[in-house]
């Protein structure tokens, strides 16, 4: 069998984005990871030596750190790091114009709706195809404002000083095993720099996609918002379905300087064999606002806890997440707010749905350091169970070491009731339509925060997930 028929044979049905293109790779590293592979990646990318050294150091940390002993250890220990390709380079160079993008790659984008998205409201697109950005454009408006929006590899070449100054400062390699792995083998991801006072009116979007079988996706994203600036970055993530498990382990660092405002929106719809182990962290300085809007659909195991470190007086951090866990899936998602300055505030809203035996966990941390007085924090977790086989857990941790802190925590677990279904069915809806309406309603608070096109897409994804889930 040639590789593509082999892959086709492995495609599971039922996942709408399970199409795949024949791989046209210029370079593919061998399976597994050692120092040679790390060096090779750095060499292929013609990186400065400091980055190569950083990668090697991270690789050693990755090797030395044990697997986390919390979360879903059963799933975690099933990951075979030797059975993964860590670097794939699909085309020779980054394309600047849509017309120049190779046809097969374009087809993939067509299927996930990229050109439409662009026509409608794009400020600039960085679409990541496997490990390199192949299509990338910034509109003139952004350039005029001095905003940099590019892929991380290009940023390292063109703005090495800025990258060197901030890379890994929020999430060092030593933070956790998967952050170390990402630092060792990272490829692609977005780099955004918003200069002082610049207001980016339209969301910057990137659409990530894991294509090659057993490809790890280790994108690295860094967003810096200078004083008084504002930016909204949005990404979707879709992986086609293959029989072999793959690993998605990204690192996202946000730096919000005084008075700036960063919103980072993700809608993830990974196929059900992907391990999704992502570290996302932001630092908010004086009077800065950071918002994480994080939607998790699909994947086999997701462990993701977007964090905001509030280090400047008056800073605010808001984290809104939703998760849908279906058969064989575990969404272990949550949020962290670390208060290290006075007069700071934050909210965490988590919405999760479990169905068909799926498992959704909320894992959260609220920590208030002694110097942080007059802090306000509000945590709300709502879980909806669609059947008896499914599971929902909450693991909220609160460490309050300061006075004058107002903490509100609310949690609810509900089930779809027979009476609710009957009410909807008496209005002409079939049972499945009724369930979908209740589920969409449950996520409404989340969907309202998305640009219209994304909320429509989210509704459609939920509808697909719901099909056939009611007997």
């Amino acid at each position, binding site marked *: 069998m040639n590789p593509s028929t082999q892959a086709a044979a492995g495609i599971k049905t039922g996942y709408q984005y399970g199409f795949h293109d024949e791989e046209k790779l210029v370079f593919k590293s061998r399976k597994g990871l050692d120092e040679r592979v790390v060096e090779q990646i750095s060499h292929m990318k013609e990186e400065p030596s400091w980055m190569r050294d950083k990668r090697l150091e991270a690789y050693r940390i990755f090797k030395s750190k044990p697997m986390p002993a919390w979360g879903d250890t059963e799933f975690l220990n099933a990951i075979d790091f030797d059975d993964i390709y860590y670097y794939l380079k699909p085309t020779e160079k980054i394309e600047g114009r849509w017309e120049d993008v190779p046809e097969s790659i374009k087809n993939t984008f067509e299927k996930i709706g990229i050109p439409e998205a662009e026509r409608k409201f794009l400020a600039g697109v960085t679409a990541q195809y496997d490990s390199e950005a192949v299509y990338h454009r910034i509109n003139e408006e952004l350039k005029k404002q001095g905003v940099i929006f590019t892929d991380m590899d290009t940023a390292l070449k063109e703005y090495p000083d800025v990258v060197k100054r901030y890379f890994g400062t929020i999430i060092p390699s030593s933070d956790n095993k998967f952050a170390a792995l990402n630092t060792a083998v990272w490829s692609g991801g977005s780099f955004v720099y918003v200069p002082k006072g610049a207001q980016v009116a339209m969301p910057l979007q990137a659409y990530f996609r894991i294509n090659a079988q057993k490809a790890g996706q280790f994108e690295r994203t860094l967003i810096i918002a200078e004083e008084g600036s504002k930016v909204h970055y949005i990404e979707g993530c879709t992986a086609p379905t293959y029989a072999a498990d793959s690993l998605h382990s990204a690192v996202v660092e946000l730096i919000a300087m005084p008075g700036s405002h960063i919103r980072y929106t993700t809608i993830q719809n990974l196929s059900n064999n992907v391990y999704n182990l992502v570290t996302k962290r932001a630092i908010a300085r004086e009077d800065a606002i950071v918002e994480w809007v994080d939607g998790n659909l699909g994947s086999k195991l997701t462990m993701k806890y977007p964090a905001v470190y509030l280090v400047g007086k008056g800073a605010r951090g808001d984290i809104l997440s939703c998760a849908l866990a279906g058969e064989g899936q575990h969404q272990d998602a949550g949020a962290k707010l670390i208060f290290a300055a006075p007069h700071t505030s934050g909210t965490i809203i988590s919405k999760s749905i479990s169905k068909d035996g799926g498992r959704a966990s909320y894992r959260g941390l609220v920590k208030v350091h002694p110097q942080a007085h007059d802090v306000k924090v509000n945590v709300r977790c709502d879980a909806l169970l669609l059947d008896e086989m499914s599971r929902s857990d909450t693991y909220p941790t609160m460490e309050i070491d300061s006075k004058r802190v107002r903490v509100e925590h609310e949690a609810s677990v509900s089930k779809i009731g027979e009476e609710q279904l009957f009410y*909807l069915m008496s209005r*002409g809806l079939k049972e499945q*339509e009724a369930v979908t309406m*209740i589920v969409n309603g*449950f996520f409404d608070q989340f969907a309202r925060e998305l640009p219209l096109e994304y909320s429509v897409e989210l509704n459609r994804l939920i509808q697909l997930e719901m099909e056939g889930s009611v007997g």
Partner: protein
Amino acid sequence: MPALLEIENLHVAVKGRPILKGVSLKIQKGEIHALMGPNGSGKSTLSYAVMGHPRYEVTDGKILIEGRDITALPPFERARLGIFLGFQYPMSLPGVSVANFIRTAMKSVKGAEAGIRDFRKTLREKMSLLEMDEKFATRYVNDGFSGGEKKRLEILQMACLAPKLAVLDETDSGLDIDALRVVASGIMKTAGPENGILLVTHYQRILDYVKPHFVHVFKDGRIAESGGPEMALELEKKGYAWLEEKAVAAEAAS
């Protein structure tokens, strides 16, 4: 011409316990029927059974709509045949707006989607008839609604869906006099020569506004007495105990 609604010797049990014990009732197009009776007499059970609630098991008898036996149909198919149930305790649907809910219901019941403009126009018209603020359309269905708001929303749905047969289960309960007047006028606007209404109520009050052609008194899972609108007034004056006495007297005379 078959009756709009025909209920034949209907027996209904909930969790094996018999509640309805042989109900027969015919409603023709253009008629308004009031079904009265004390609490616990089975009035609401009849409403639910007509709509097809899965927990209400029909153990004998049938329900026909325009001659078609619907006894075994699921609720959504009954809705699509033009049956509407106004709930005594409508459920809340957090995150689902009134406008979205009604639009989805209209699409499901009528099988075709109205354009968003036409829909908005219809909704606005019906809402103003019911003296509802426009903001109402963006609120979540019954989420944090007062009792009166919930009942208004039921009537709004009925007005938009324009059913052939509307069963209104205690739509008047918990309403102040102004809300009662608005709700009653909404019912009267839906009533017409082509449809029928079954008004289930404990009190005579709403019948001052909605004039029924027939009044039935429900007792122990059966219709104990049927008559014209004057019977409602008599019930109001004498209470349900009057029926009891009447039954005893009838038994003594036989």
